[in-house]
């Protein structure tokens, strides 16, 4: 029934090529019209030639089998006229070739990251594509067979012309027929069907979904320590996109409302803690800055729009993920890893580095390190888990001088913490599927950039959520009344009649180098990596001059920690006349100079790492 030699290899190859290229062209055109696409999609011509060429061998084999099967079934005894026999060959080749061409769609999707856009179930999609390919493949096969039938006559005419004699008429030329029977080992229809089905099944496996796994934690009771949970879940970005993230949360909760961060917590030198409080020091309500802005203490008559400020009075609000500890306190944690894989709790710049086995709760006690700002994070597969969201800030303040950076320098009116982070949805997707992430093979390409977990309209306090805007003003947007300030000398023992600035602690938990850039005034950089810089004795570290200095762009490499003082004074280029006439707030942008970080989702501007600082007139 199936004798391959009834179809000469040359005819089979021509049939296969014609069906492959004609069908591919038709399918590429239609899928484009439907909106289908693939990663780095080439131009139409290249797309068609590539797909047709890749499909040609398989389609040729199928066309050969199909043609042989058709004549074996219908015209085993070669009784049909040559014209009908040719049509039969074209039909068999067309049907088989079209089916194989359509069945190659899953392989095509795998190879080229192609996405179909018709929403059809796979089986219906395959059937539809086979029919559509047949619509183009059958005419192409018909043309091939017509040419094959005409070829002997044409060749004879050419030979005759060359010989100088007229070519004899050729009536009803036929396709050359085999002289021998198929060997016993020839492909049978049953084998053809079996192998074809196996190929389809193999292609279908590629679509299997990998499930994310997590396991419940053991229930433990803790009263005098801060409970953290290593959780995972999806977090909405500024454009509404949901991204898989991990985090140190305050409750054992996953999707759809995962707990991935903690509210600010205090550990005090008198042994109290954890104390849940958004502000520090624990002062009365009269010392809480309204919408984050410390009120003035009167008008400074020395200049237009100048004020006298209250020193060592105001509390400072801190963002989520913050642990504030006074020197001399002990930080007591109980961390439960609710995920399937191992994680760690590491405090950068200290010797705190604890393993967190899956499903277990681990007690972590350590004395507050020296005054400064520390990044706590999961150092497993660094920077992967840190970028996935397992990070936060530990702020250590001098217990006896809470309005200074370290008890010696940097007295501030109030302080701020900026935790910079980058979010890569592709890493999140891989992590959700349980795929190991090798940053060397899959470099991070962040699409979202945050300050204190906010971006765009949220980090400038202009979102539709007024409660969130208020929190942003309290813990992220520096603001205060204009005052006379010599920021270069804000030691507590210097002239107390001078105003001070506002301290901004910066940490970069992300993977990109960020450069917060301040409009209006420069900032005075006091400390790098929790080392207070000298005011007069410069040092060189890694080629960088280390000295307290003015700068308007603060370079923040991954894991960097810096402390800068923002002088809340009228900018130097603001004329007294302008200052006298200014009746509303002076709002100055702060944005990162790493251009991509100003966007969200690959282009939504300004949806990234942006904020403002505000000078009250």
């Amino acid at each position, binding site marked *: 029934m199936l004798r391959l030699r009834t179809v000469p290899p040359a005819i089979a190859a021509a049939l296969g090529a014609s069906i492959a290229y004609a069908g591919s062209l038709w399918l590429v055109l239609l899928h484009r019209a439907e909106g289908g696409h693939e990663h780095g999609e080439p131009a139409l011509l290249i797309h068609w030639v590539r797909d047709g060429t890749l499909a040609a061998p398989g389609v040729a084999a199928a066309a050969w089998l199909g043609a042989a099967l058709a004549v074996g079934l219908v015209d085993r005894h070669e009784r049909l006229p040559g014209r009908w026999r040719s049509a039969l060959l074209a039909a068999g080749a067309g049907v088989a070739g079209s089916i194989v061409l359509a069945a190659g769609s899953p392989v095509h999707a795998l190879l080229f990251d192609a996405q179909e*856009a018709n929403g059809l179930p796979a089986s219906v999609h395959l059937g539809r594509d086979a029919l*559509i390919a047949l619509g183009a493949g059958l005419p192409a096969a018909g043309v091939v067979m017509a040419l094959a039938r005409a070829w002997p006559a044409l060749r004879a005419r050419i030979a005759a012309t060359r010989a100088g004699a007229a070519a004899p008429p050729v009536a009803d030329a036929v396709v050359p027929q085999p002289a021998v029977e198929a060997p016993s080992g020839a492909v049978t229809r049953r084998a053809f069907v079996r192998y074809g089905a196996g190929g389809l099944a193999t292609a279908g496996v590629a679509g299997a979904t990998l499930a994310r796994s997590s396991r419940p934690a053991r229930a433990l009771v803790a009263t005098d320590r801060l409970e953290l949970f290593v959780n995972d879940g999806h977090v909405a970005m500024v454009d*509404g996109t949901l991204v898989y993230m991990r985090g140190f949360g305050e409750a054992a909760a996953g999707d759809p409302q995962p707990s991935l961060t903690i509210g600010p917590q205090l550990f005090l030198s008198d042994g109290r803690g954890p104390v849940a409080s958004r502000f520090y020091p624990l002062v009365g309500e009269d010392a809480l800055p309204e919408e984050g802005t410390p009120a003035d203490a009167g008008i400074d008559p020395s200049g237009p729009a100048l004020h006298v400020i209250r020193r060592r009075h105001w509390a400072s609000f801190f963002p989520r993920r913050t642990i504030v500890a006074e020197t001399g306190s002990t930080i007591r944690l109980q961390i439960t890893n609710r995920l399937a894989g191992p994680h760690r709790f590491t405090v950068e710049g200290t010797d705190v580095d604890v393993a967190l086995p899956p499903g277990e709760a681990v007690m972590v006690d350590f004395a507050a390190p020296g005054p400064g700002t520390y990044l706590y994070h999961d150092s497993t597969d660094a920077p992967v888990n840190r970028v996935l969201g397992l990070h936060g800030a530990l702020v250590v303040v001098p217990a006896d001088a809470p309005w200074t950076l370290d008890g010696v320098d940097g007295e501030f009116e109030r302080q701020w913490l900026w935790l910079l982070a980058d979010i890569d949805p592709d890493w999140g997707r891989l992590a959700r599927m349980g795929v190991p992430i090798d940053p060397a093979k899959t470099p991070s390409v962040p699409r979202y950039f945050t300050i204190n977990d906010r971006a765009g309209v949220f980090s400038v306090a202009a979102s539709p959520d007024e409660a969130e805007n208020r929190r942003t003003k309290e813990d992220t947007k520096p603001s205060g009344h204009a005052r006379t300030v010599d920021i270069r000398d804000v030691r507590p023992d210097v002239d107390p009649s001078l105003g001070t600035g506002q301290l901004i602690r910066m940490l970069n938990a992300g993977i990109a180098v960020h450069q917060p850039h301040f409009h209006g005034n420069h900032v005075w950089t006091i400390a790098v990596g929790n080392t207070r810089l000298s005011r007069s004795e410069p040092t060189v570290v890694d080629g960088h001059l280390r000295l307290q200095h003015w700068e308007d762009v603060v370079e923040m490499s991954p894991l960097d920690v810096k402390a800068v003082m923002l002088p809340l004074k009228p900018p130097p280029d603001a004329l007294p006349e302008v200052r006298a006439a200014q009746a509303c707030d002076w709002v100055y942008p702060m944005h990162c100079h790493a251009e991509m970080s100003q966007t969200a989702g*690959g282009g939504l501007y300004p949806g990234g790492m942006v904020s403002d600082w505000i000078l009250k007139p």
Partner: protein
Amino acid sequence: MLAVVLLLAAAGAAMGARTLTAHGPEIDGRPPFRGAWDARASFGPVRVERVRRLGDSAFAGGHHTADERVDELRVSLRIVNRLGRRVPYSPGQFRLRLGSTTITPVRPNPPPDALAAGHTLRQELAFVVPARRSTYTLVFDDLGRPRPLTVALGSLASARKD
């Protein structure tokens, strides 16, 4: 046998031709072919019920499109959670693909939350699209699948008269 094959080929050719011609310059969209606007998400069906393209002077362009005419594409969806549990959901999971780039919906509402078990949600999405483009694909980031779902919206010529 030859008649059957010819019939099938004719049907395939007609189907292909209809797919191409169905992407006509209609302001109100129609699916390219039956069932094309249905997608099966990991939690249940996502069905596009209507697509409209509006030429609206309110969409005069943003930071980088000041010199580019834009339209508003409105997509009406019906989403059903057929699982026995809540699933995270945000209208921001939908994006519109234009060639090799995707764009986010404007004024996404409701805020990111979750779809309750058995709940049916009617979702209205609005996208600002360049007036020069006419073929769109809706992309849904299905959290239960390794890759986003895509739904062809077909082709809608610009609604602008100018």
